[in-house]
């Protein structure tokens, strides 16, 4: 749908949040004082986990989930880069297992860069970053095997996890590994809370790199996200007040959603018609908030005259021509 006419609100909110983030990044670059970030226990425990692995001489396991290469995997690998930086300094072995070939390639490059930047490229084990399988449970079985065989001392399960999350978390729990986990999949967070020592909940996962490195760009971006949250909270509060008021008002009109044939195709259209039923208060689809997210699109708005492309008609040879 053309959102110059309808559905502009979502675009407006997105662009506003983008402006918030960019503005705060610019602001953080100029400010001299450090911006406060609340304590995140899971990230404070990062040093302890690596220290424990170093003392025990066992590896640190990192898994960026089973998602493809997207913002979630990239964020996970960015956190793992910070974990690896510390592990490299102590000479602690690492294992980074990937389920997606693109994430594997990215992780391999990043981890190599980390060892190189620390001047310890000789400490890097070529097999420390490995592709296990792109099938969910084959990957789960492979990683579970690594956890149990190598008796890892610490696990970092950060990224997009699904049903395999509990297999990893419980296996590592059974061998007494310190576990720091976080998933962008809300359905898996309860499993991690039940089985892991520290869990990054919701957007704490995205705040991790800002929390660890305190880089102005990352911290500014975090502040921009908070402004975005405040915007959303204000919408929730305003929407609640508006809906609570409207639900007390008498219903005078009703919305009719249907499909109409427009220029040879079916389109979803809607209209507002007078309500002539029993007296009652407004229903959810009568409210201003609902209409803002589900605008009225009339058939007239969709009626646009357009020319058709000129298609060169292929002339079929006649039977006589074929015979000749």
């Amino acid at each position, binding site marked *: 749908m053309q959102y110059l006419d309808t559905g502009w609100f979502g675009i407006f909110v997105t662009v506003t949040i983008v402006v918030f983030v960019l503005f705060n990044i610019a602001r953080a670059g100029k400010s001299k004082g450090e911006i406060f970030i609340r304590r995140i226990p899971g990230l404070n425990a990062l040093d302890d986990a690596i220290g424990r692995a170093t003392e025990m001489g066992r590896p640190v396991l990192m898994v960026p989930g089973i998602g493809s290469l997207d913002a979630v995997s990239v964020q996970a690998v*960015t956190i793992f880069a910070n974990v690896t930086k510390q592990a490299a300094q102590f000479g602690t072995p690492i294992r980074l297992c990937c389920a997606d070939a693109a994430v594997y390639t990215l992780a391999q490059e990043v981890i190599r860069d980390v060892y190189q930047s620390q001047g310890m490229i000789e400490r890097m084990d070529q097999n420390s970053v490995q592709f296990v399988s792109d099938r969910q449970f084959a990957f789960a079985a492979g990683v579970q095997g690594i956890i149990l065989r190598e008796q890892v001392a610490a696990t970092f399960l950060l990224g997009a996890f699904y049903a395999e999350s509990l297999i990893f978390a419980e296996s590592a729990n059974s061998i007494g590994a310190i576990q720091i986990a976080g998933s962008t999949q809300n359905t898996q967070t309860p499993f991690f809370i039940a089985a892991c020592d520290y869990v990054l909940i919701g957007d704490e996962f*995205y705040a991790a790199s800002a929390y660890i490195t305190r880089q102005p760009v990352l911290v500014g*971006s975090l502040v921009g*996200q908070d402004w975005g949250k405040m915007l959303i909270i204000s919408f929730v509060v305003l929407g609640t007040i508006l809906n609570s008021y409207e639900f007390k008002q008498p219903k005078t009109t009703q919305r009719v959603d249907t499909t109409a044939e427009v220029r040879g195709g079916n389109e979803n259209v809607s209209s507002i018609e007078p309500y002539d039923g029993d007296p009652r208060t407004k229903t959810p689809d009568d409210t201003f908030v609902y209409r803002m997210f589900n605008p009225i699109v009339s058939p007239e708005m969709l009626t646009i005259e357009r020319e058709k492309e000129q298609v060169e008609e292929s002339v079929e040879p006649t039977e006589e021509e074929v015979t000749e």
Partner: protein
Amino acid sequence: MITNLLSLGWDVNPTDPNKWFIILGVMLAGGVGAFLLSKAPTSSRRSIIVAFTFVSGLFWVLKYLWPEPIAFREGDVPRNGIEGFGKYLTDGVPFVSTLAQTLTAFLLGLGIFSLLRVHLTKISRKQKDWQFSVILLISLVTVCFFGYWDWILFNFRMKDVLVSDDPSTWTWVNQVQDILFDGLLQNMDAAMFSLIAFFIFSAAYRAFRIRSVESSLLMVSALIVMLSLMGALTFVWNSAVLQASGGNPVHFLSNFRLDTIAGWVQSNVQVPALRALEFGVGLGALAMGLRLWLGLERGGVSQ
């Protein structure tokens, strides 16, 4: 001029007599580009990555922000430049997606290389449990071999053998492939999935041990939701509530029906909390994507 450029479209016309020259030209340009990239100084590496990321991201940003034509039908001519560019972007989605898939296919090769390197090293050094690595590599080669053979038989119908989904048309190759895939792999997947039931049990036992106010709340709310799903118990409880309220369904006590309490916990406690988390995750992903797209992130991935 822009209209002329847009009219070129994303695909080569299959009937174009010059299509082979175009394909060859694109491949040559790609080869030269790859060679130049390999020779680029290390200091310029970041700039090149940022530029590529920006251009790739720009397509999707424009696709999201640019107005799409309303009620556009097959064979319609765009009315103006805005509609024309909107159509151009929409037409480009399959092309850009194919590019991403092609890249992923190459990367899968790197993944398999990693797998081979890890396990061949293990076998050659006779490290602990090296026998499992042998089994893994044999399985990999066998499944690949029969998988491709099966695919060729299905798609190219070699030696006049018409293979279809009907098992009676299968050759021994298709039978072996079926045993490997449906008979072994799927069942092993199911076995791994079933293990989760036991893991849930042990994790839930630890989580529900009453150690604090939070775990007590967790246990009570979980108990209510679980009990509400037990038909017989819900019936007995709700009957008792109905009796206590004197058979009046709008009595205040009716709020304490088991399914009503569970519904309240789910819709008024669980759902708002999940929505709040989703807002946070969405904002985080947006900010992360923005930083990557504009090359603002330093360290880690973008270094």
